[in-house]
């Protein structure tokens, strides 16, 4: 077996198929791990989406037709709103991909100290409710915020820039997660060879690092764009007069009870997900990724100039994220923000419905979402490697589209799908499991893309070798895939867990009188004017997530050590 053999994509599944034919158990295992996630996607994503598409064609007169689309597109302000959305998401994507790549590179390829500070800072936007982060930004940069008060400047946070900043805070950690997964896979031998041929560090970066990270960068850009163009929460709090399509859905559905018109805009927002076709094409070009058997991970090195400039941006971004959350924590202890800044614990006596009970419900929901999600995604990602070209394409597209569906639309689609009397799916309605599934499919694309990026580091030959020398697929999984994939699996698990704890837009339609979650309590407190209580509740959510993550991490470390003893 030659080191540099890079079999074309089409050949791989055929070979694997032969190996599979030997062992019936392996075959069953393979089929299960392919079809269970696919059926899940069909039931909990595709079916609800189809119902929404159907609603978008139901006209006011009850007939089926395209009148709603004509109505929406002929509204005079809509072209401006579409333009606004594109500009906002475009800027956010640019910032997040460039900054995200710098941070990911800094974390993965340098020796700089205190990198863990950056890793922790990047968790903050994922585990704090976005409503409260926007409040934190206003507390800091608002017209009556701490900075305005201290300096007398008249800062204008409301509008495009406030929106770009808050959405970047939301998207950046997701970009870093995906790009980092792509930087983990590089092969140090490529760099060594280039060095011997006299390539400068810059040439090595342009000719090796960038092409290898291309898929990760593309995926990250895709996620940043779609996730911010569909996000409503930040636009509502900090967007000011900068109207975007996500606000338009809210205005139609929640403001004017025009359910079907909202569905139309929801469908229009799916258009950017067409980029998925291109990403899938890049993904299929496996030979560019260069994951080969015997690859050795690139060891971090030192280059003072590079490290200092990257560090400046990375620590700067981290500092910003920390500052916003610290402001929230500070506000949670303040008597009456921003007028009486004496400290108190009174805000932690939560007066919203149910007190702290919704927090524990969130914990259950998030654990379910993370366990089910990580398992299903792993099964899907491992099994789709063996698929033929056409099928792989279909799976890819289906797995990537959820990111383009706004939470509000997904939540309502879940009601349409699962609020059915007497039928089996109706059993799920009003349970934590349904909320967990909704959260998982809401964030399905990010998890999928991260895992796909991660598994590209596993050379197909290695897996094959393990299978050929008598091991079954399970051995291949354990010996070839799991060790390489473990950091990515952990990242995805934590991501799903954290987002489930705080996501609001879809969940708000799935809670019941008996079952509410923490993010809803935060919203209620803020609506009733208790901004500091809302901050306090968010601090509790953050603390619980931190503790949970810490415990999981400790367990993981313990499990990793065990076999060696």
């Amino acid at each position, binding site marked *: 077996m030659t080191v540099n053999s890079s079999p074309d994509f089409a050949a791989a599944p055929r070979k694997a198929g032969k190996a599979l034919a030997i062992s019936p158990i392996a075959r069953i295992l393979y089929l299960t791990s392919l079809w269970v996630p696919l059926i899940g996607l069909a039931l909990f994503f595709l079916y609800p989406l189809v119902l929404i598409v159907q609603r978008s064609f139901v006209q006011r007169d009850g007939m089926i037709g395209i009148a709603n689309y004509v109505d929406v597109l002929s509204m005079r302000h809509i072209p401006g709103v579409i333009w606004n959305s594109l500009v906002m998401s475009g800027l956010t994507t640019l910032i997040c991909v460039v900054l995200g790549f710098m941070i990911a590179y800094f974390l993965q390829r340098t020796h700089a100290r205190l990198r863990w500070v950056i890793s922790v800072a990047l968790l903050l936007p994922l585990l704090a409710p976005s409503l409260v982060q926007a409040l934190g930004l206003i507390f800091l940069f608002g017209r009556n915020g701490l900075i305005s008060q201290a300096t007398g400047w008249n800062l204008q946070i409301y509008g495009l820039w406030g929106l770009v900043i808050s959405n970047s805070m939301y998207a950046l950690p997701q970009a870093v997660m995906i790009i980092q997964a792509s930087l983990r896979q590089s092969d140090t031998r490529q760099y060594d060879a280039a060095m011997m041929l006299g390539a400068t560090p810059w040439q090595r970066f342009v000719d090796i690092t960038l092409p290898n990270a291309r898929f990760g960068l593309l995926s990250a850009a895709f996620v940043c764009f779609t996730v911010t163009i569909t996000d409503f929460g930040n636009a509502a709090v900090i967007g000011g007069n900068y109207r975007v399509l996500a606000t338009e859905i809210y*205005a139609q559905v*929640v403001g004017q*009870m025009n*359910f079907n018109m909202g569905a139309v805009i929801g469908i229009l927002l799916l258009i950017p997900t067409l980029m998925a076709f291109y990403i899938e094409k890049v993904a299929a070009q496996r030979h560019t990724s260069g994951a080969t058997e015997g690859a050795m991970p690139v060891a971090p090195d030192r280059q003072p100039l590079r490290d200092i400039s990257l560090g400046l941006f990375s620590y700067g971004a981290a500092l910003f994220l920390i500052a916003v959350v610290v402001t929230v924590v500070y506000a949670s202890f303040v008597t009456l923000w921003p*007028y009486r800044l004496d400290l108190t614990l009174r805000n932690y006596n939560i*007066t919203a419905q149910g007190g702290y009970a919704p927090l524990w419900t969130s914990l259950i929901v998030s654990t379910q979402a993370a366990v089910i999600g990580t398992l299903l995604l792993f099964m899907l990602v491992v099994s789709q490697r063996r698929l033929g070209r056409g099928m792989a394409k279909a799976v890819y597209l289906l797995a990537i589209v959820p990111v383009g569906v706004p939470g509000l639309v997904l939540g309502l689609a879940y009601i349409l799908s699962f609020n059915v009397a007497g039928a089996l799916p109706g059993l799920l309605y009003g349970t934590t499991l349904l909320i967990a599934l909704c959260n998982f499919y809401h964030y399905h694309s990010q998890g999928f893309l991260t895992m796909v990026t991660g598994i590209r580091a596993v050379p197909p030959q290695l897996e094959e070798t393990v299978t050929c020398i008598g091991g079954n697929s399970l051995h291949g999984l354990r010996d070839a895939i799991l060790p390489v994939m473990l950091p990515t699996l952990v990242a995805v698990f934590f991501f799903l867990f954290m987002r489930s704890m705080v996501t609001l837009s879809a969940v708000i339609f799935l809670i019941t009188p008996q079952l509410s979650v923490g993010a809803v309590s935060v919203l209620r407190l803020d609506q009733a004017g208790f901004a500091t209580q809302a901050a306090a509740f968010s601090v509790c959510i953050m603390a619980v997530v931190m503790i949970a993550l810490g415990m999981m991490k400790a367990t993981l470390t313990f499990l990793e050590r065990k076999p060696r003893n």
Partner: protein
Amino acid sequence: MRQTKTRLSAFLASCSLLATPAFAGEITVYSALEDEEIAAYLAVAQQELPDLTINVLRLSTGNLGARLIAEAANPQADVLWGFAVTNILSPAIYDLLDVHEAEGVGDLPAQFRDPENRWFAPIGYMGAFCVNTMRLEQIGAPMPQSWADLTDPAFAGEIVMPDPGSSGTGFLQISAILQGAGEEDGWQLIQDLDPNMAQYTTSGSRPCRMAQAGEFTVGASLSFVAMQGIEQGFPLEMVIPSDFAGFELEANALISGSSNEEAARRFLDWTLSESAAQVYSENKALITMPGVPRSPLAEAAGLPEDLSEVLFPMDFATSGAQRDAIIARWRDLVGR
């Protein structure tokens, strides 16, 4: 097949029994009332109806409306409680309601109940300005008393109001101006206000929350939202606009297909009872039931004995029918 089906449903029924003990007298209520109000009212209702278990889901009117429409095929709620009349009149919601002639509904003035008895509104709330007194002093503007006062250039970029397309509160304010001043003058006033408007927000309470935090001077919002801020000690004053104070009714209704119809009707009757009136008067400024003593809150808000002096008689049916046209014209006018 049928047998399996019955067996299955029996099994499911026993499951749900295990999960939540379902009494004959258990109802699910969707409400847009405030958390504190719900707590106060329920405490009394439970005394009057001790055999009834009342489960309340509290969401904003808009979110509840979207949910009701989505759940239409299999309604989950039995009662709609304290839901904005403007939204109830939307056919998408109105068609989901059942007729219930509540005890004593005849005593309510006609404008506070549906001619077909699908809803009745014993309470409501008013449009109000939240004025941050500290910021007012800083910008050196006089205390505004009316919408007309807000056209003063001293308020440039210092006022926030809700977007009528996204928020029922915003719509009630615009339609109060239009109905009060007439089409032509009304649109003129809206246009004159626009240069001073820093933002049109998505939510109806957000303008007041921004004013209480000192981000802007005036937030056009609702009376109870302002009261919440004042109670917490913010430097806030509530102003009921002297020219066009819009108001919104909080209606109660029976949802068609309720599986606990009897209990639901009993609860609805309670919402119009004397004991309910008593607890309304402790929590509400605007009570439409005749003969209810004026509430201390109304007094605190500086409302006159006869509310009709400040409240413009709004025609909800008309504004509802013209809703889309009004919103479209408004958006063209302000261009945001």
